[in-house]
């Protein structure tokens, strides 16, 4: 398959691995930001093939994982109401709130539907004018353009029965938070390729300079990941900081201007709570004042709902690269994909789920 097979070429991968080994002279800790990268690394066993000196730690880039419990509880409260069609990306349905998830709401009679795009949710609103249609708008900069477009179109067409629960987060403030942490171990980053496809990478340049780290926008296929790791290792070994793009077929420095424009039109930067981590200043997006009529949390009066985390779940440490999933005492015991304590065990991008699905016991084989 074109654009896939060449980036999964075992021969090319072996060459890159040899080059990484040749360049590596000491221990380096590199964080891949995106959960999609984490899954590809684990799925392809790249961590097993790298020299022992290269330690990959897994970043916070899993939108489902960092969506605060509060948003989930509010979503559950809205989805349970009569006359509501609740729409969401599939990943969110299994994320546990304090007592249930959206699948359970559906089994209790709630009209909960999986959509592939927020624009599909908007279409459901057009088709069902007597119902309230709510979309759970979670994600990083990758989902923001389509979520913004859905709200923008709803406003333009005057679709009053459509609203969104916004839990949009941004990568650069999270990177700053990780690098500023007193016990930070991360020395270089593989930046999330798809986030950079939307936003470009100019906003990483000041971070690289301030914290003196290499930041390498990287793709998701094995060859992409190895090329990103190789570049990061080269820069670390040479003592260089800066941003070097290794996902050139998708990412440009400026990103996607049309996507950035629609984000800016509908959303504004706001403080955001990250599940397991806490509030990070300026780390999220919220609806601008002129679109607040589409804010489902206000429309349904659920702002008062707050929630508390399971004390057993250490997903916050996992999301900051401070704890490997299988080092968590609950991993594979109290916490499995069938009975998850936290979202990192649920999402197709969650690090705990990746370890459970692909890695469990393999290292012991």
């Amino acid at each position, binding site marked *: *398959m074109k654009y*896939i097979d060449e980036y*999964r070429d*075992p021969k090319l*991968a*072996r060459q890159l691995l040899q080059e990484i080994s040749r360049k590596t002279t000491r221990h380096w800790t590199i964080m891949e930001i995106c959960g*999609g990268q984490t899954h590809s690394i*684990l*799925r*392809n*066993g*790249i961590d*097993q*093939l790298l020299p022992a000196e290269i330690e990959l730690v897994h970043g916070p880039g899993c*939108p*489902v994982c960092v969506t605060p419990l509060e948003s989930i509880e509010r979503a559950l409260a809205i989805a349970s109401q009569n006359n509501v069609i609740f729409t969401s*990306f*599939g*990943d*969110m*349905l*299994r994320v546990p709130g304090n007592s249930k998830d959206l*699948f359970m709401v559906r089994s209790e009679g709630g009209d909960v539907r*999986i*959509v*592939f795009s927020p624009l*599909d949710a908007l279409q459901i609103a057009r088709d069902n004018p007597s119902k309230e249609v709510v979309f759970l708008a*979670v*994600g*990083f900069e*990758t*989902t923001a353009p389509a979520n913004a477009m859905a709200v923008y179109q709803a406003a333009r067409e005057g679709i009053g029965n459509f609203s969104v629960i916004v839990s949009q987060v941004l990568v650069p403030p999270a990177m700053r938070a990780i690098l500023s942490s007193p016990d930070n171990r991360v020395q270089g980053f593989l930046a999330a390729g*798809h986030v950079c496809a939307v936003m470009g990478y100019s906003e990483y340049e000041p971070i690289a300079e301030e914290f003196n780290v290499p930041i390498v926008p990287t793709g998701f296929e*094995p060859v992409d990941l190895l090329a990103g790791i190789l570049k990061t290792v080269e820069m670390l070994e040479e003592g260089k900081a800066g941003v070097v793009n290794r996902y050139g077929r998708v990412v440009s420095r400026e990103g996607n201007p049309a996507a950035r424009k629609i984000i800016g039109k509908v959303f504004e930067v706001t403080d955001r709570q990250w599940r397991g981590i806490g509030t990070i200043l300026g780390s999220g997006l919220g609806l601008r004042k002129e679109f607040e009529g589409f804010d489902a949390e206000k429309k349904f009066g659920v702002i008062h709902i707050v929630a508390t985390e399971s004390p057993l779940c250490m997903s916050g440490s996992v999301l900051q690269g401070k704890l490997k999933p299988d080092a968590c005492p609950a991993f594979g015991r109290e916490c499995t*994909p*069938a009975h998850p304590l936290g979202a990192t065990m649920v*999402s*197709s*991008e969650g690090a705990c789920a990746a370890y*459970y*699905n*692909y*890695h*469990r*016991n*393999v290292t012991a*084989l």
Partner: protein
Amino acid sequence: MSISPACPAPIQQHETVQMAHGAGGRLSQALMQRVFMPHLSNAFLDQLDDQAKFDLPAGRTAFTTDTYVVSPVFFPGGNIGELAVHGTVNDLAVGGARPFYLSAGFVLEEGLPLTELETIVRSMAEAARKAGVMIVTGDTKVVGKGQCDKLFINTSGIGIVREGISVSCRNLQTGDSIILSGSVGDHGMAIMTSREGLSFQSSITSDTAALNAMIEAILDAVPSVHAMRDPTRGGVAATLNELAVSSSAGIEIREGTIPVKPDVRGACELLGIDPLHVANEGKLVLSAAAEDAAKVIEVMRSFECGRDAAVIGSVVGDHPGMVVMRTAFGSRRVIDLPLGEQLPRIC
């Protein structure tokens, strides 16, 4: 004022399923005569008794049942009717049994167009004829609009286990070859891409097929086959896990050996789904001694439904109860059971 001379007699000829079609009265009989009997008629069913009476050849009896609720009922490459025959025939055949007789129970939703029902019944009859089985008894119920999705079908099947054959999911032997009869994920992706809400087109068609003729030929050539399963819901991953757990054996499969059609692969890539977790309805997973593998593959490939057969791995002494894939890069990863519904990824 004009008076119509016609008496307002009840409508006898409906074009859709009515509640009265399931009430056992005149309309029920009309439904039988109009839709079911013209296609399914045979010496046993024609008796119209509450049960079919038949003799079976000597040997151990195999008996199975399955219920079909697929949505949409018509999908690229087939419909619920042929699926209901193939599925039950295959469940008998993978146990080493020759299927003989099927029952068919229908739950019909009020308002279902009779033309659709007739198309489905005709497909069932055709599928049964091709597979060499007879539908000998049946039942029809009607439920109110919205109480089922067009129609559900249950089929049960009876067969006789071939003499000298002992296949079982507990029978995997270290060193066995794991053989797959063809490409994975065709049925599940045909269903997914034909559901509402997915706005991409594909030419993916379901692989729904009866496997009994191919299995008969395999067992003629290699009677010592150790295990057979048809990897339906949960896909090949679920089937391999069931075999590994039941036999307390390890299975190692090799990435790149598993046939996946380009369209199916593309759709799976797009939706973030592993083709190994996607349902099949006309494939066979088989475990046999390594020295018999070439013979099994040769027989499989002589059938349309086994054209792309391949050895995908082997039974190993390590990691009992677990399926591990050797990746194209030389690393290893666990192949686990899929968890619940297949969820598309979010970004």
